[in-house]
């Protein structure tokens, strides 16, 4: 099973290597990983997608928590969350296909970020299913290159605002 984890770490050199080393050293798999600073410049947030059964996931979460530089692990198996991914897709767009490309990009609420005589580069954001869907459609027209960010995720806030 694939799982998403959020990891708050101290924003220091070597921390990413500790997290990555934990996975490689124990034979766990990282499917995607994104890192960026949080509101607090001393803290970074890692969104990490990994695969494993219940036992492996339990170990991964515990091992992450054990790292001295890890402040908090958010196990998205336990909370509702929103996740997004962004893709930059360079696609063939010659005279006879250009309109079709633009139509597809429009349907997916994508944006054209670079134009050249024979190519368009588009930016699409969405969950993994949506990204996959546009990739499938554009593939028929000729994708030259794709760069994806990997997943970022954030916990949903509580829907009721009742005070305790």
């Amino acid at each position, binding site marked *: 099973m694939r799982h998403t984890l959020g990891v708050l*770490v*101290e924003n220091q050199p*070597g921390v990413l*290597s*500790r997290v990555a*080393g934990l996975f490689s*050293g124990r034979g766990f798999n990282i499917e995607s990983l994104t890192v960026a600073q949080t509101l607090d410049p001393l803290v970074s947030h890692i969104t990490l997608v990994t695969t494993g059964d219940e*036992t492996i996931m*339990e*170990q991964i979460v*515990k*091992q992450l*928590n*054990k*790292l*001295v*530089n*890890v*402040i908090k692990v958010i196990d998205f198996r336990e909370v509702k969350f929103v996740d997004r991914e962004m893709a930059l897709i360079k696609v063939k767009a010659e005279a006879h296909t250009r309109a079709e490309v633009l139509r597809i990009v429009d349907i997916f609420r994508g944006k054209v970020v670079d134009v050249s005589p024979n190519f368009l580069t588009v930016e699409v954001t969405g969950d993994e299913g949506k990204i996959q869907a546009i990739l499938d459609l554009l593939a028929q027209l000729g994708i030259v290159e794709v760069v994806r960010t990997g997943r970022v995720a954030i916990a949903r806030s509580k829907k009721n605002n009742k005070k305790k």
Partner: protein
Amino acid sequence: MKLTGAQIFFESLKAEGVEVIFGLPGGAVIDIYDEMPKHNIRHILVRHEQGATHMADGYARATGKVGVCLVTSGPGATNTVTGIATAYCDSIPIVVFTGQVPTPLIGNDAFQEADIVGITRPCTKHNYLVKDVRDLARIIREAFFLARSGRPGPILVDLPKDVIASKAEFKYPKNISMKGYKPTTEAHMGQIKRAYATIAKSKRPVIYAGGGVILSSAAKELKELGERLKCPVTTTLMGLGGFPAPHELWLGMLGMHGTFRANMAVASADMLISIGARFDDRVTGKLDEFAPSAKIIHIDIDPTSISKNVRVDIPIVGDCKDALKKLLQLVKENPLEDLEKQRQPWLDQIQKWKETYPLAYEQKNDLIKPQYVVEMLYKLCKDKNPIISTEVGQNQMWAAQYYHYSEPRTLLTSGGLGTMGYGMPAAIGAQAGFPERLVIDIAGDGSIQMCIQELTTAVENNLPVKVAILNNQYLGMVRQWQQLFYERQYCATCLKMAPDFVKLAEAYGAVGLRATKPNEVEKVILEAIATPRPVLMDFVVNPEECVYPMVPAGAATTQMILV
């Protein structure tokens, strides 16, 4: 007033109460060594940096304090890796200071540069590269705190030469704030209650204790728990000394070379109380058949150890001593009814196992049996309350089986990593902590040659360790595997080409003694104990003796070879 990094280094060590440093100088740490004579701190000059780490480790295991090493950059640093990994596997608190090239040169493939922080990341509890002298005191404070708190372990602090030379205001921080480090030391009372309710229902309980009991100084509580529950106790190799071996509830060590009764008891138990042990493969054998009918309680300070190898019914995260105290309180308040009668069938069964297959060997007149040497060491030394260290392999297992440990911190052995060459430097480290005690390394002829150069260190520093080499002229444990599982093809395990250990000892300025016949063993041991200098005892033993019982790797622990 501003101090240099080197001065801050020594002031910080003083604040941590460090008495002794094991080290070897080099270009990158020469400023620290230059500062050293001004400070009242003992330095033991080793002959190889691996020796320094094992000494710091042996010192830490024997005394319970944090062991400290100081080495130079590059090869000095990389030579410590085996010792650091050894301490990591056994959760031993040491702090290793390594020199580093000046910060502007880091990453430039400078002379004697190694990325030691990168290299040791997976085998330290945590490590640091000090980039600014203003961080030095705080980092040293954190390093010692991390090493000794929670699940203890080795910490490495990398010190670039320019950082050591530059100056900063010195104030040793009182408090520590590490957002990401908050070990759970207090056991959860609800879990303790659940555990006791389950224990109360059990008919065939076994306590399985490990090194955690020794690290948390919980031997007293363990003994009391065993007695109050009338529950038989086994320990891992790391746990030996955590429960008094002569005790009637003592089962002996369990696992690959454990006693018949310990392995049978665990296999038949309906309740396994694991305390500070981590279900290592040398303990469990085939996982599916380990304690198959037992409910398992697991007390451990490290949550990652729980349910890692074996499913656990009642996990208790916390310090062993705290958990045992709380459990004992419950036992005292609600003693089990009819305990004697309840437990008797189980204890009778264990007694039967004990009588069926006790640990045994036969000492004839011709060749010395290695087990006999260990038994004689026990017989002749036990009243002196010695510290025993071991190398790794057959010598280690015989030291575990035939020497009987009654107190914690009296056995120093590389249990997790299995580092040959560990024993003698560890003994030297222990001796530095306890100059008056008898310290004996039970060694093999293979292992002892891996750190033999430290004999000089022992001689130079008047650390009168005794080394008992069980000399079978083989890498004995590998040879045993070849004998049992590889049709006796003794490929590359024969060590017939070896130095004359008596002459070697003399060359190092130590005393060399030899026994080749059983009736010489006692004399040699007595002479060694009476000699106030380092002694190497060469016991020429039966070359093809095997360690039994033995559970073949991957088999169930009830499938013991008992010959």
